[in-house]
């Protein structure tokens, strides 16, 4: 009876606040975590993405409004804030896209070694951050 009454260990899913900060983040798990974060960002900003799709495609006038939002501003926020939002989306898309290609590649090739996980994660991060910098510089008119 005492053994039954003894509290048995309880295994729960990951708690974002209690467990995540204490984690070590090797590159492969960093890419995995970023896949979720970038996906969630795009999910939450989806109305903004479709707003851009709408304004840029619907007519010449709406296209001009689309450009104005980024060059001047919209809803009381200056243009560079909207450019930062766009940059966040650019990063999220690149990260999710490249990490997704990595996933597909691993599935097709059964490339599931520890070494490949690490090296491909490094390539993914370098590519996504590098391309984000290049496109971000273009977005803010640096070249």
């Amino acid at each position, binding site marked *: 009876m005492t053994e039954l009454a003894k509290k048995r260990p309880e295994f729960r899913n990951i708690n*974002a606040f209690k467990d995540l900060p204490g984690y070590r983040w090797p590159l492969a798990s960093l890419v995995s975590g970023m896949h979720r974060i970038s996906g969630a960002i795009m999910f939450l900003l989806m109305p903004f993405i479709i707003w851009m799709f709408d304004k840029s495609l619907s007519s010449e006038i709406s296209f001009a409004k689309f450009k104005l939002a980024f060059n001047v501003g919209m809803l009381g926020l200056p243009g560079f804030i909207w450019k930062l939002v766009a940059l966040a989306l650019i990063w999220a898309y690149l990260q999710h896209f490249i990490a997704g290609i990595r996933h597909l590649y691993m*599935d097709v090739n059964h490339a599931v070694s520890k070494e490949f996980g690490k090296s491909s994660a490094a390539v993914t991060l370098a590519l996504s951050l590098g391309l984000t910098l290049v496109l971000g510089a273009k977005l803010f008119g640096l070249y």
Partner: protein
Amino acid sequence: MSVNYGSKRIVVGAHYGLRDWLGQRITAALMALFTLIVLAQVLFTAGPIGYDKWAGIFASQWMKILTFCVIIALLYHVWVGMREIWMDYVKPVGLRLALNTFSLVWLVGCAGWAIQVLWRL
């Protein structure tokens, strides 16, 4: 009840594991293809891209059909992804149900809006 592994394994659950896994990859491949097609048309367009050139990319019938398929693929892909996030981090059943419901409404609303934009082009 002797052998419970390999092909003799007793499968339990709602059987949506493989379907979600495979669906996630097929929709991802379709969206990646779409990205490359749009990107190629943007990159190979000479000169600055104004409204005409941008809207021209989505004007052809095959591109509209492809974009439509991509919107549906996105809807499914994001639903599977968000459900996974809520399943991992949100334990209380009521809250999880609310977030799942919110995700679905949010996604269906977004997909409807995107299709509306596409259809009047």
